[in-house]
Protein backbone atom coordinates (compact mmCIF):
# COMPACT_ATOMS: atom_id res chain seq x y z
CA UNK A 1 0.00 0.00 0.00
CA UNK A 2 2.84 2.36 0.75
CA UNK A 3 4.43 1.73 -2.62
CA UNK A 4 1.36 2.62 -4.67
CA UNK A 5 0.87 5.86 -2.72
CA UNK A 6 4.55 6.69 -2.51
CA UNK A 7 4.56 9.85 -4.59
CA UNK A 8 1.63 11.23 -2.63
CA UNK A 9 3.01 10.36 0.81
CA UNK A 10 6.13 12.38 0.03
CA UNK A 11 3.96 15.51 -0.05
CA UNK A 12 1.31 14.58 2.52
CA UNK A 13 3.62 13.48 5.34
CA UNK A 14 5.40 16.84 5.72
CA UNK A 15 2.07 18.60 5.09
CA UNK A 16 0.55 16.85 8.11
CA UNK A 17 3.74 17.32 10.10
CA UNK A 18 3.76 21.12 9.65
CA UNK A 19 0.62 21.94 11.71
CA UNK A 20 1.60 19.30 14.27
CA UNK A 21 5.01 20.97 14.67
CA UNK A 22 3.30 24.33 15.18
CA UNK A 23 1.43 22.89 18.17
CA UNK A 24 4.47 21.29 19.83
CA UNK A 25 6.08 23.06 22.82
CA UNK A 26 9.11 25.22 21.99
CA UNK A 27 12.58 23.76 22.45
CA UNK A 28 14.14 20.67 20.97
CA UNK A 29 10.94 18.65 20.48
CA UNK A 30 9.91 20.39 17.23
CA UNK A 31 13.46 20.01 15.95
CA UNK A 32 13.51 16.29 16.64
CA UNK A 33 10.09 15.83 15.06
CA UNK A 34 11.12 17.73 11.92
CA UNK A 35 14.33 15.71 11.76
CA UNK A 36 12.37 12.45 11.79
CA UNK A 37 10.01 13.66 9.08
CA UNK A 38 12.76 14.83 6.75
CA UNK A 39 14.67 11.56 7.09
CA UNK A 40 11.47 9.61 6.46
CA UNK A 41 10.91 11.65 3.29
CA UNK A 42 14.53 11.10 2.29
CA UNK A 43 14.10 7.33 2.52
CA UNK A 44 10.81 7.49 0.59
CA UNK A 45 12.40 9.63 -2.14
CA UNK A 46 15.24 7.12 -2.58
CA UNK A 47 12.62 4.39 -2.88
CA UNK A 48 10.73 6.43 -5.46
CA UNK A 49 13.88 7.02 -7.49
CA UNK A 50 14.68 3.31 -7.61
CA UNK A 51 11.23 2.67 -9.09
CA UNK A 52 11.52 5.17 -11.94
CA UNK A 53 15.23 4.74 -12.59
CA UNK A 54 14.59 2.39 -15.51
CA UNK A 55 12.69 5.08 -17.40
CA UNK A 56 9.19 4.11 -16.27
CA UNK A 57 6.70 6.62 -14.89
CA UNK A 58 4.28 6.65 -11.97
CA UNK A 59 0.89 8.29 -12.32
CA UNK A 60 -1.29 9.11 -9.32
CA UNK A 61 -4.81 10.53 -9.50
CA UNK A 62 -5.76 12.75 -6.59
CA UNK A 63 -9.30 12.21 -5.37
CA UNK A 64 -9.76 9.48 -7.97
CA UNK A 65 -10.38 12.04 -10.71
CA UNK A 66 -8.77 10.81 -13.90
CA UNK A 67 -6.42 13.21 -15.68
CA UNK A 68 -6.75 15.61 -17.44
CA UNK A 69 -9.72 16.63 -15.23
CA UNK A 70 -8.22 15.94 -11.86
CA UNK A 71 -4.82 16.76 -10.47
CA UNK A 72 -2.30 14.14 -11.48
CA UNK A 73 1.07 13.44 -9.95
CA UNK A 74 3.24 12.26 -12.78
CA UNK A 75 6.64 11.00 -11.68
CA UNK A 76 9.50 10.27 -14.00
CA UNK A 77 13.25 10.17 -13.42
CA UNK A 78 13.56 13.98 -13.36
CA UNK A 79 10.83 14.49 -10.73
CA UNK A 80 12.23 11.74 -8.56
CA UNK A 81 15.74 13.15 -8.87
CA UNK A 82 14.70 16.67 -7.84
CA UNK A 83 12.66 15.23 -4.95
CA UNK A 84 15.74 13.32 -3.87
CA UNK A 85 17.84 16.51 -3.94
CA UNK A 86 15.28 18.47 -1.89
CA UNK A 87 14.64 15.79 0.73
CA UNK A 88 18.32 14.83 0.90
CA UNK A 89 19.43 18.40 1.55
CA UNK A 90 16.63 18.87 4.11
CA UNK A 91 17.65 15.66 5.89
CA UNK A 92 21.26 16.80 6.08
CA UNK A 93 20.39 20.40 7.03
CA UNK A 94 18.30 19.41 10.04
CA UNK A 95 21.13 18.02 12.22
CA UNK A 96 23.04 21.18 11.32
CA UNK A 97 20.08 23.37 12.21
CA UNK A 98 19.94 22.37 15.89
CA UNK A 99 22.83 24.53 17.13
CA UNK A 100 22.59 27.37 14.63
CA UNK A 101 18.85 27.81 15.22
CA UNK A 102 19.36 27.84 18.99
CA UNK A 103 21.92 30.56 18.39
CA UNK A 104 19.91 32.67 15.95
CA UNK A 105 16.21 32.15 16.66
CA UNK A 106 14.46 33.03 19.92
CA UNK A 107 13.47 29.94 21.85
CA UNK A 108 9.74 30.72 21.91
CA UNK A 109 9.72 30.89 18.09
CA UNK A 110 11.31 27.49 17.49
CA UNK A 111 8.13 25.46 16.97
CA UNK A 112 6.80 28.02 14.49
CA UNK A 113 10.20 28.18 12.79
CA UNK A 114 10.27 24.44 12.18
CA UNK A 115 6.62 24.44 11.12
CA UNK A 116 7.38 27.07 8.48
CA UNK A 117 10.48 25.14 7.47
CA UNK A 118 8.32 22.07 6.89
CA UNK A 119 5.87 24.14 4.86
CA UNK A 120 8.72 25.35 2.67
CA UNK A 121 9.82 21.71 2.36
CA UNK A 122 6.27 20.66 1.36
CA UNK A 123 6.16 23.40 -1.25
CA UNK A 124 9.44 22.36 -2.85
CA UNK A 125 8.52 18.65 -2.80
CA UNK A 126 5.08 19.45 -4.21
CA UNK A 127 6.56 21.41 -7.11
CA UNK A 128 8.79 18.47 -7.90
CA UNK A 129 5.99 15.90 -7.67
CA UNK A 130 2.98 17.47 -9.33
CA UNK A 131 1.96 17.09 -12.94
CA UNK A 132 -0.52 19.94 -13.03
CA UNK A 133 0.57 23.49 -13.82
CA UNK A 134 -1.87 25.26 -11.51
CA UNK A 135 -1.05 22.92 -8.65
CA UNK A 136 2.57 23.77 -9.38
CA UNK A 137 1.78 27.47 -8.96
CA UNK A 138 0.13 26.81 -5.61
CA UNK A 139 3.08 24.80 -4.32
CA UNK A 140 5.46 27.45 -5.64
CA UNK A 141 3.62 30.05 -3.57
CA UNK A 142 3.61 27.80 -0.48
CA UNK A 143 7.37 27.42 -0.70
CA UNK A 144 7.94 31.09 -1.56
CA UNK A 145 5.72 32.51 1.18
CA UNK A 146 7.35 30.32 3.79
CA UNK A 147 10.83 31.19 2.54
CA UNK A 148 10.03 34.93 2.93
CA UNK A 149 9.13 34.20 6.54
CA UNK A 150 12.25 32.14 7.12
CA UNK A 151 14.52 34.80 5.61
CA UNK A 152 12.80 37.52 7.63
CA UNK A 153 13.68 35.59 10.81
CA UNK A 154 17.37 36.45 10.37
CA UNK A 155 19.12 38.23 13.22
CA UNK A 156 19.90 41.55 11.54
CA UNK A 157 17.23 44.08 10.74
CA UNK A 158 18.35 43.97 7.11
CA UNK A 159 16.90 40.46 6.99
CA UNK A 160 13.51 42.19 7.06
CA UNK A 161 14.22 44.42 4.08
CA UNK A 162 15.79 41.48 2.24
CA UNK A 163 12.67 39.40 2.86
CA UNK A 164 10.45 42.30 1.80
CA UNK A 165 12.37 42.78 -1.43
CA UNK A 166 12.21 39.06 -2.12
CA UNK A 167 8.46 39.10 -1.38
CA UNK A 168 7.83 41.85 -3.91
CA UNK A 169 9.99 40.28 -6.61
CA UNK A 170 8.75 36.76 -5.90
CA UNK A 171 5.09 37.82 -5.98
CA UNK A 172 5.58 39.61 -9.29
CA UNK A 173 7.21 36.45 -10.62
CA UNK A 174 4.38 34.27 -9.34
CA UNK A 175 1.76 36.60 -10.83
CA UNK A 176 3.53 36.47 -14.19
CA UNK A 177 3.41 32.70 -13.92
CA UNK A 178 -0.32 32.93 -13.18
CA UNK A 179 -0.90 35.10 -16.26
CA UNK A 180 1.04 32.62 -18.38
CA UNK A 181 -0.95 29.67 -17.05
CA UNK A 182 -4.20 31.59 -17.62
CA UNK A 183 -3.37 32.38 -21.25
CA UNK A 184 -2.40 28.81 -22.00
CA UNK A 185 -5.49 27.51 -20.24
CA UNK A 186 -7.63 29.88 -22.30
CA UNK A 187 -6.06 28.45 -25.44
CA UNK A 188 -6.20 24.74 -24.58
CA UNK A 189 -8.72 24.26 -21.77
CA UNK A 190 -6.47 21.99 -19.75
CA UNK A 191 -3.94 22.27 -16.96
CA UNK A 192 -2.41 18.79 -17.01
CA UNK A 193 1.17 18.93 -18.27
CA UNK A 194 1.03 15.84 -20.46
CA UNK A 195 -2.33 16.89 -21.87
CA UNK A 196 -1.09 20.45 -22.44
CA UNK A 197 1.81 19.05 -24.43
CA UNK A 198 -0.56 17.12 -26.70
CA UNK A 199 -2.92 20.02 -27.24
CA UNK A 200 -0.24 22.66 -27.73
CA UNK A 201 1.59 20.91 -30.55
CA UNK A 202 -0.88 21.81 -33.35
CA UNK A 203 -1.16 25.44 -32.22
CA UNK A 204 2.43 26.30 -31.49
CA UNK A 205 2.25 29.29 -33.84
CA UNK A 206 -0.68 30.98 -32.07
CA UNK A 207 0.12 34.36 -30.64
CA UNK A 208 -1.64 33.66 -27.33
CA UNK A 209 0.57 30.62 -26.83
CA UNK A 210 3.68 32.71 -27.47
CA UNK A 211 2.53 35.41 -25.04
CA UNK A 212 1.75 32.79 -22.42
CA UNK A 213 5.16 31.23 -22.91
CA UNK A 214 6.90 34.57 -22.42
CA UNK A 215 4.99 35.26 -19.20
CA UNK A 216 5.84 31.78 -17.91
CA UNK A 217 9.53 32.07 -18.71
CA UNK A 218 9.87 35.55 -17.18
CA UNK A 219 7.98 34.45 -14.06
CA UNK A 220 10.20 31.41 -13.54
CA UNK A 221 13.33 33.42 -14.37
CA UNK A 222 12.46 35.73 -11.47
CA UNK A 223 12.19 32.76 -9.14
CA UNK A 224 15.46 31.21 -10.25
CA UNK A 225 17.33 34.53 -10.08
CA UNK A 226 18.36 34.49 -13.71
CA UNK A 227 20.36 37.52 -14.82
CA UNK A 228 19.11 40.32 -15.01
CA UNK A 229 16.36 39.42 -12.50
CA UNK A 230 18.76 38.25 -9.82
CA UNK A 231 18.99 41.30 -7.57
CA UNK A 232 16.85 39.93 -4.73
CA UNK A 233 19.04 36.89 -4.16
CA UNK A 234 22.31 38.13 -2.57
CA UNK A 235 20.63 39.93 0.35
CA UNK A 236 18.12 37.15 0.90
CA UNK A 237 20.84 34.50 1.27
CA UNK A 238 23.18 36.78 3.18
CA UNK A 239 20.78 37.79 5.95
CA UNK A 240 18.78 34.56 6.29
CA UNK A 241 19.48 32.33 9.33
CA UNK A 242 22.43 30.02 8.54
CA UNK A 243 20.39 26.82 8.27
CA UNK A 244 18.00 28.55 5.89
CA UNK A 245 20.84 29.87 3.72
CA UNK A 246 22.03 26.29 3.41
CA UNK A 247 18.61 24.86 2.64
CA UNK A 248 17.41 27.53 0.22
CA UNK A 249 20.69 27.92 -1.67
CA UNK A 250 20.88 24.17 -2.20
CA UNK A 251 17.24 23.58 -3.15
CA UNK A 252 15.09 26.62 -4.04
CA UNK A 253 16.88 27.73 -7.20
CA UNK A 254 17.37 24.10 -8.29
CA UNK A 255 13.64 23.52 -8.05
CA UNK A 256 13.05 26.67 -10.09
CA UNK A 257 15.43 25.31 -12.75
CA UNK A 258 13.40 22.11 -12.69
CA UNK A 259 10.20 24.11 -13.26
CA UNK A 260 11.85 25.81 -16.21
CA UNK A 261 12.84 22.43 -17.69
CA UNK A 262 9.32 21.09 -17.17
CA UNK A 263 7.53 24.06 -18.67
CA UNK A 264 9.88 24.48 -21.62
CA UNK A 265 10.40 20.85 -22.59
CA UNK A 266 7.40 18.92 -21.24
CA UNK A 267 4.58 21.45 -21.59
CA UNK A 268 5.89 23.10 -24.74
CA UNK A 269 8.52 21.17 -26.63
CA UNK A 270 12.03 21.35 -27.92
CA UNK A 271 10.61 22.20 -31.36
CA UNK A 272 8.86 25.22 -29.89
CA UNK A 273 12.14 26.28 -28.34
CA UNK A 274 13.79 26.18 -31.74
CA UNK A 275 10.92 27.89 -33.60
CA UNK A 276 10.99 30.83 -31.22
CA UNK A 277 14.81 30.78 -30.85
CA UNK A 278 14.38 30.90 -27.09
CA UNK A 279 17.48 28.70 -26.91
CA UNK A 280 19.50 31.67 -28.11
CA UNK A 281 18.02 33.87 -25.38
CA UNK A 282 18.84 31.20 -22.77
CA UNK A 283 22.40 31.01 -24.07
CA UNK A 284 22.86 34.78 -23.96
CA UNK A 285 21.29 35.28 -20.52
CA UNK A 286 23.20 32.28 -19.16
CA UNK A 287 26.52 33.55 -20.53
CA UNK A 288 25.98 37.08 -19.24
CA UNK A 289 24.77 35.71 -15.92
CA UNK A 290 27.95 33.65 -15.49
CA UNK A 291 30.19 36.61 -16.28
CA UNK A 292 28.30 39.33 -14.40
CA UNK A 293 27.61 37.31 -11.24
CA UNK A 294 31.13 35.86 -11.03
CA UNK A 295 32.63 39.31 -11.52
CA UNK A 296 30.22 40.67 -8.92
CA UNK A 297 31.37 38.03 -6.44
CA UNK A 298 34.96 39.25 -6.72
CA UNK A 299 34.12 42.73 -5.46
CA UNK A 300 32.59 41.65 -2.17
CA UNK A 301 34.27 41.13 1.19
CA UNK A 302 31.82 38.81 2.90
CA UNK A 303 31.75 35.02 2.61
CA UNK A 304 28.00 34.60 2.52
CA UNK A 305 27.57 37.35 -0.04
CA UNK A 306 30.29 35.94 -2.30
CA UNK A 307 28.65 32.53 -2.11
CA UNK A 308 25.27 34.06 -2.95
CA UNK A 309 26.69 35.73 -6.06
CA UNK A 310 28.35 32.46 -6.96
CA UNK A 311 24.92 30.79 -6.70
CA UNK A 312 23.58 33.17 -9.34
CA UNK A 313 26.53 32.26 -11.58
CA UNK A 314 25.95 28.54 -11.10
CA UNK A 315 22.25 28.86 -11.90
CA UNK A 316 23.28 30.72 -15.05
CA UNK A 317 25.38 27.69 -16.03
CA UNK A 318 22.25 25.55 -15.73
CA UNK A 319 20.30 27.91 -17.98
CA UNK A 320 23.23 27.87 -20.39
CA UNK A 321 22.93 24.08 -20.52
CA UNK A 322 19.25 24.41 -21.41
CA UNK A 323 20.20 26.85 -24.14
CA UNK A 324 22.21 24.16 -25.92
CA UNK A 325 18.91 22.27 -26.32
CA UNK A 326 20.83 19.03 -26.85
CA UNK A 327 21.11 15.82 -24.86
CA UNK A 328 24.55 16.76 -23.58
CA UNK A 329 23.58 20.29 -22.63
CA UNK A 330 20.47 19.42 -20.64
CA UNK A 331 22.25 16.42 -19.07
CA UNK A 332 24.86 18.90 -17.85
CA UNK A 333 22.06 21.05 -16.39
CA UNK A 334 20.50 18.15 -14.51
CA UNK A 335 23.84 16.86 -13.24
CA UNK A 336 24.82 20.36 -12.13
CA UNK A 337 21.54 20.74 -10.21
CA UNK A 338 22.65 17.85 -8.03
CA UNK A 339 26.32 18.75 -7.79
CA UNK A 340 25.65 22.39 -7.07
CA UNK A 341 23.33 21.42 -4.23
CA UNK A 342 26.20 19.39 -2.74
CA UNK A 343 28.88 22.06 -3.03
CA UNK A 344 26.79 25.12 -2.15
CA UNK A 345 25.26 23.24 0.77
CA UNK A 346 28.72 22.44 2.13
CA UNK A 347 30.00 25.99 1.57
CA UNK A 348 27.04 27.70 3.23
CA UNK A 349 27.30 25.23 6.12
CA UNK A 350 30.91 26.23 6.64
CA UNK A 351 30.01 29.92 6.41
CA UNK A 352 27.27 29.31 8.98
CA UNK A 353 29.79 27.60 11.28
CA UNK A 354 31.99 30.70 11.12
CA UNK A 355 28.99 32.92 11.84
CA UNK A 356 28.17 30.74 14.85
CA UNK A 357 31.66 31.22 16.32
CA UNK A 358 32.41 34.81 15.26
CA UNK A 359 28.94 36.30 14.76
CA UNK A 360 29.84 37.76 11.39
CA UNK A 361 30.78 36.63 7.91
CA UNK A 362 32.59 39.84 6.92
CA UNK A 363 36.25 39.45 5.98
CA UNK A 364 37.45 42.10 8.45
CA UNK A 365 36.17 40.01 11.36
CA UNK A 366 37.35 36.60 10.23
CA UNK A 367 40.92 37.09 9.02
CA UNK A 368 43.06 34.05 9.79
CA UNK A 369 40.18 32.16 11.38
CA UNK A 370 40.94 29.12 9.21
CA UNK A 371 43.92 28.25 11.42
CA UNK A 372 41.71 28.09 14.49
CA UNK A 373 38.92 26.20 12.73
CA UNK A 374 40.94 23.77 10.58
CA UNK A 375 38.09 21.35 9.83
CA UNK A 376 35.76 24.11 8.76
CA UNK A 377 38.46 25.63 6.60
CA UNK A 378 39.29 22.26 5.02
CA UNK A 379 35.59 21.85 4.17
CA UNK A 380 35.52 25.26 2.51
CA UNK A 381 38.70 24.38 0.64
CA UNK A 382 37.47 21.08 -0.81
CA UNK A 383 33.95 22.34 -1.57
CA UNK A 384 35.58 25.42 -3.11
CA UNK A 385 37.71 23.22 -5.39
CA UNK A 386 34.50 21.45 -6.37
CA UNK A 387 32.89 24.80 -7.17
CA UNK A 388 35.84 25.74 -9.36
CA UNK A 389 35.70 22.38 -11.10
CA UNK A 390 38.99 20.65 -10.19
CA UNK A 391 39.14 17.03 -11.46
CA UNK A 392 38.24 14.51 -8.77
CA UNK A 393 35.36 16.61 -7.45
CA UNK A 394 31.68 16.68 -8.37
CA UNK A 395 32.01 20.16 -9.85
CA UNK A 396 34.40 18.88 -12.48
CA UNK A 397 31.82 16.43 -13.83
CA UNK A 398 29.23 19.10 -14.49
CA UNK A 399 31.77 21.55 -15.97
CA UNK A 400 33.02 18.74 -18.18
CA UNK A 401 29.54 18.10 -19.55
CA UNK A 402 28.93 21.80 -20.12
CA UNK A 403 32.22 21.96 -22.02
CA UNK A 404 31.38 18.86 -24.08
CA UNK A 405 27.99 20.33 -24.99
CA UNK A 406 29.59 23.59 -26.08
CA UNK A 407 32.28 21.90 -28.13
CA UNK A 408 29.75 19.58 -29.77
CA UNK A 409 27.98 22.61 -31.25
CA UNK A 410 31.26 24.38 -31.94
CA UNK A 411 30.06 27.25 -29.79
CA UNK A 412 33.58 28.49 -29.12
CA UNK A 413 32.48 31.75 -27.53
CA UNK A 414 30.28 29.94 -25.02
CA UNK A 415 33.08 27.47 -24.30
CA UNK A 416 35.30 30.43 -23.60
CA UNK A 417 32.68 31.88 -21.24
CA UNK A 418 32.52 28.58 -19.33
CA UNK A 419 36.31 28.53 -18.98
CA UNK A 420 36.47 32.18 -18.02
CA UNK A 421 33.67 31.68 -15.49
CA UNK A 422 35.72 28.94 -13.84
CA UNK A 423 38.70 31.26 -13.81
CA UNK A 424 36.64 33.95 -12.08
CA UNK A 425 35.48 31.39 -9.51
CA UNK A 426 39.16 30.62 -8.81
CA UNK A 427 39.63 34.31 -8.06
CA UNK A 428 36.75 34.71 -5.65
CA UNK A 429 37.30 31.37 -3.92
CA UNK A 430 40.98 32.29 -3.54
CA UNK A 431 39.91 35.51 -1.87
CA UNK A 432 38.04 33.45 0.73
CA UNK A 433 40.95 31.00 1.19
CA UNK A 434 43.36 33.89 1.60
CA UNK A 435 41.23 35.77 4.10
CA UNK A 436 40.60 32.66 6.15
CA UNK A 437 44.03 31.09 6.13
CA UNK A 438 46.87 33.24 4.88
CA UNK A 439 45.83 36.62 6.18
CA UNK A 440 47.34 37.67 9.51
CA UNK A 441 44.68 37.44 12.25
CA UNK A 442 43.57 40.79 13.58
CA UNK A 443 44.58 41.33 17.19
CA UNK A 444 41.14 42.37 18.33
CA UNK A 445 39.52 39.04 17.63
CA UNK A 446 39.53 36.62 20.57
CA UNK A 447 40.68 33.05 19.90
CA UNK A 448 37.85 30.78 18.83
CA UNK A 449 37.43 27.04 18.90
CA UNK A 450 36.49 24.64 16.14
CA UNK A 451 32.81 24.39 15.21
CA UNK A 452 30.82 21.82 17.22
CA UNK A 453 30.47 18.28 15.92
CA UNK A 454 26.79 18.69 15.07
CA UNK A 455 27.86 21.24 12.45
CA UNK A 456 30.97 19.46 11.24
CA UNK A 457 29.31 16.10 10.59
CA UNK A 458 26.67 17.32 8.10
CA UNK A 459 29.24 19.64 6.53
CA UNK A 460 31.73 16.85 5.99
CA UNK A 461 29.04 14.46 4.76
CA UNK A 462 28.41 16.91 1.95
CA UNK A 463 32.14 17.45 1.35
CA UNK A 464 32.74 13.71 1.07
CA UNK A 465 29.70 13.45 -1.21
CA UNK A 466 31.39 16.06 -3.41
CA UNK A 467 34.41 13.79 -3.75
CA UNK A 468 32.38 10.59 -4.08
CA UNK A 469 30.18 11.94 -6.87
CA UNK A 470 33.28 13.36 -8.55
CA UNK A 471 34.73 9.87 -8.87
CA UNK A 472 31.63 7.70 -9.19
CA UNK A 473 29.36 9.40 -11.73
CA UNK A 474 27.13 6.40 -12.44
CA UNK A 475 24.15 7.59 -10.42
CA UNK A 476 24.04 11.24 -11.41
CA UNK A 477 24.78 10.81 -15.10
CA UNK A 478 22.53 7.80 -15.65
CA UNK A 479 19.61 9.49 -13.90
CA UNK A 480 20.22 12.68 -15.85
CA UNK A 481 20.36 10.83 -19.16
CA UNK A 482 17.11 8.98 -18.46
CA UNK A 483 15.47 12.24 -17.41
CA UNK A 484 16.65 14.06 -20.51
CA UNK A 485 15.46 11.27 -22.78
CA UNK A 486 12.00 11.47 -21.21
CA UNK A 487 11.94 15.23 -21.76
CA UNK A 488 12.01 14.48 -25.49
CA UNK A 489 15.43 16.02 -26.08
CA UNK A 490 17.55 14.54 -28.83
CA UNK A 491 21.27 14.62 -29.45
CA UNK A 492 22.67 17.56 -31.35
CA UNK A 493 23.27 17.15 -35.06
CA UNK A 494 23.94 19.76 -37.66
Amino acid at each position, binding site marked *: *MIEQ*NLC*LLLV*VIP*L*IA*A*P*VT*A*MLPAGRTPWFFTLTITWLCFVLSIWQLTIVLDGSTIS*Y*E*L*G*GWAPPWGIEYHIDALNAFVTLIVSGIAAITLPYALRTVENEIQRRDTSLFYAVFLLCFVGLLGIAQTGDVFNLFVFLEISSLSSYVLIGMGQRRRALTAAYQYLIMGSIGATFLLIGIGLIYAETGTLNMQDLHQRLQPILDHRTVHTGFIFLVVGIALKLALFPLHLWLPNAYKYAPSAISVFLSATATKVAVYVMLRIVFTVFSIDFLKITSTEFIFLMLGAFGVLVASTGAIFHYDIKRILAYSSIAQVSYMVLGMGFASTLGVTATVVHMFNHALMKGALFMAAGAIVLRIGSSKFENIYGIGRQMPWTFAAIFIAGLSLIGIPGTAGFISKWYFMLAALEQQAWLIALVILFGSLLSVVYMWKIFEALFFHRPTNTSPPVSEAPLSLLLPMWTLVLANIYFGINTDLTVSVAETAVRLLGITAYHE
Partner: protein
Amino acid sequence: MKHNLVLRFITKYLFPVIALFALYVQFHGDYGPGGGFQAGVILSVAFILYAMVFGMESMEKVLPLGLLRTLASTGVLIYAATGVTTLLMGGNFLDYDILSQLPIQGQHIGIMIIELGVGITVSAVMLIIFYAFTDRRNYD
Protein backbone atom coordinates in the same frame (compact mmCIF):
# COMPACT_ATOMS: atom_id res chain seq x y z
CA MET B 1 -15.95 53.23 21.01
CA LYS B 2 -16.92 52.09 24.46
CA HIS B 3 -19.57 54.79 24.96
CA ASN B 4 -21.30 54.59 21.62
CA LEU B 5 -24.62 53.05 22.56
CA VAL B 6 -25.98 52.61 19.03
CA LEU B 7 -22.91 50.77 17.84
CA ARG B 8 -22.82 48.54 20.88
CA PHE B 9 -26.49 47.72 20.55
CA ILE B 10 -26.34 46.94 16.85
CA THR B 11 -23.17 44.87 17.16
CA LYS B 12 -24.68 42.79 19.90
CA TYR B 13 -27.60 41.82 17.68
CA LEU B 14 -25.65 41.65 14.43
CA PHE B 15 -23.11 39.20 15.78
CA PRO B 16 -25.40 36.13 15.91
CA VAL B 17 -26.86 36.97 12.51
CA ILE B 18 -23.43 37.13 10.88
CA ALA B 19 -22.35 33.94 12.63
CA LEU B 20 -25.53 32.18 11.53
CA PHE B 21 -25.02 33.32 7.95
CA ALA B 22 -21.45 31.98 8.11
CA LEU B 23 -22.79 28.60 9.18
CA TYR B 24 -25.33 28.67 6.36
CA VAL B 25 -22.62 29.42 3.80
CA GLN B 26 -20.49 26.71 5.35
CA PHE B 27 -23.01 23.90 5.34
CA HIS B 28 -24.94 24.81 2.23
CA GLY B 29 -21.71 24.98 0.23
CA ASP B 30 -22.31 21.70 -1.56
CA TYR B 31 -25.61 22.86 -3.08
CA GLY B 32 -25.12 26.57 -3.58
CA PRO B 33 -22.36 29.11 -3.76
CA GLY B 34 -20.29 28.96 -0.61
CA GLY B 35 -17.84 26.79 1.22
CA GLY B 36 -15.18 26.88 3.85
CA PHE B 37 -13.18 29.85 2.58
CA GLN B 38 -16.13 32.21 2.44
CA ALA B 39 -17.71 30.94 5.64
CA GLY B 40 -14.44 31.20 7.52
CA VAL B 41 -13.97 34.81 6.48
CA ILE B 42 -17.57 35.73 7.35
CA LEU B 43 -17.29 34.13 10.78
CA SER B 44 -14.04 35.92 11.51
CA VAL B 45 -15.65 39.19 10.42
CA ALA B 46 -18.26 38.72 13.15
CA PHE B 47 -15.52 38.42 15.76
CA ILE B 48 -13.52 41.32 14.32
CA LEU B 49 -16.62 43.54 14.47
CA TYR B 50 -17.14 42.52 18.07
CA ALA B 51 -13.51 43.23 18.95
CA MET B 52 -13.63 46.64 17.29
CA VAL B 53 -16.61 47.73 19.34
CA PHE B 54 -16.02 46.00 22.66
CA GLY B 55 -12.24 46.01 22.68
CA MET B 56 -9.56 43.37 22.32
CA GLU B 57 -9.65 42.43 26.00
CA SER B 58 -13.15 41.00 25.89
CA MET B 59 -12.29 39.18 22.67
CA GLU B 60 -9.17 37.62 24.15
CA LYS B 61 -11.25 36.16 26.95
CA VAL B 62 -13.23 34.16 24.40
CA LEU B 63 -10.50 33.38 21.92
CA PRO B 64 -6.96 33.53 23.29
CA LEU B 65 -4.18 33.48 20.69
CA GLY B 66 -2.99 30.05 21.74
CA LEU B 67 -6.43 28.57 21.10
CA LEU B 68 -6.54 30.18 17.66
CA ARG B 69 -3.17 28.68 16.75
CA THR B 70 -4.39 25.25 17.78
CA LEU B 71 -7.61 25.74 15.79
CA ALA B 72 -5.67 26.81 12.69
CA SER B 73 -3.55 23.67 12.89
CA THR B 74 -6.57 21.47 13.65
CA GLY B 75 -8.35 22.59 10.49
CA VAL B 76 -5.44 21.53 8.32
CA LEU B 77 -5.24 18.26 10.20
CA ILE B 78 -8.97 17.56 9.63
CA TYR B 79 -8.36 18.08 5.93
CA ALA B 80 -5.31 15.83 5.87
CA ALA B 81 -6.94 13.21 8.08
CA THR B 82 -9.86 12.89 5.64
CA GLY B 83 -7.37 12.25 2.87
CA VAL B 84 -5.49 9.71 4.92
CA THR B 85 -8.75 7.98 5.86
CA THR B 86 -9.60 7.46 2.20
CA LEU B 87 -6.07 6.15 1.69
CA LEU B 88 -6.48 3.66 4.51
CA MET B 89 -9.85 2.56 3.16
CA GLY B 90 -8.09 1.56 -0.03
CA GLY B 91 -8.85 4.51 -2.30
CA ASN B 92 -6.75 7.37 -3.58
CA PHE B 93 -5.99 10.47 -1.51
CA LEU B 94 -9.22 12.48 -1.03
CA ASP B 95 -11.23 9.97 -3.05
CA TYR B 96 -14.56 10.59 -1.30
CA ASP B 97 -16.44 7.90 -3.22
CA ILE B 98 -15.12 5.31 -0.86
CA LEU B 99 -16.43 6.98 2.31
CA SER B 100 -19.90 5.52 1.87
CA GLN B 101 -21.64 2.71 0.04
CA LEU B 102 -23.15 5.19 -2.40
CA PRO B 103 -20.45 7.21 -4.20
CA ILE B 104 -22.65 10.35 -4.26
CA GLN B 105 -23.25 10.16 -0.54
CA GLY B 106 -19.53 9.63 -0.09
CA GLN B 107 -18.85 12.81 -2.04
CA HIS B 108 -21.28 14.70 0.24
CA ILE B 109 -19.66 13.44 3.41
CA GLY B 110 -16.16 14.06 2.12
CA ILE B 111 -16.70 17.61 0.93
CA MET B 112 -18.54 18.45 4.17
CA ILE B 113 -15.64 17.38 6.37
CA ILE B 114 -13.02 18.96 4.10
CA GLU B 115 -14.85 22.28 4.02
CA LEU B 116 -15.28 22.18 7.78
CA GLY B 117 -11.51 21.90 8.13
CA VAL B 118 -11.00 24.71 5.64
CA GLY B 119 -13.54 26.89 7.46
CA ILE B 120 -11.91 26.39 10.86
CA THR B 121 -8.45 27.15 9.53
CA VAL B 122 -9.50 30.18 7.52
CA SER B 123 -11.45 31.83 10.35
CA ALA B 124 -8.66 31.10 12.85
CA VAL B 125 -5.98 32.44 10.51
CA MET B 126 -7.95 35.60 9.70
CA LEU B 127 -8.30 36.26 13.43
CA ILE B 128 -4.60 35.56 14.02
CA ILE B 129 -3.77 38.12 11.32
CA PHE B 130 -6.18 40.57 12.98
CA TYR B 131 -4.51 39.99 16.36
CA ALA B 132 -1.07 40.46 14.87
CA PHE B 133 -1.92 43.86 13.45
CA THR B 134 -4.04 45.27 16.27
CA ASP B 135 -2.48 43.95 19.43
CA ARG B 136 0.58 46.15 19.69
CA ARG B 137 0.75 46.49 23.47
CA ASN B 138 3.95 44.50 23.62
CA TYR B 139 5.75 46.73 21.20
CA ASP B 140 4.71 50.37 21.34
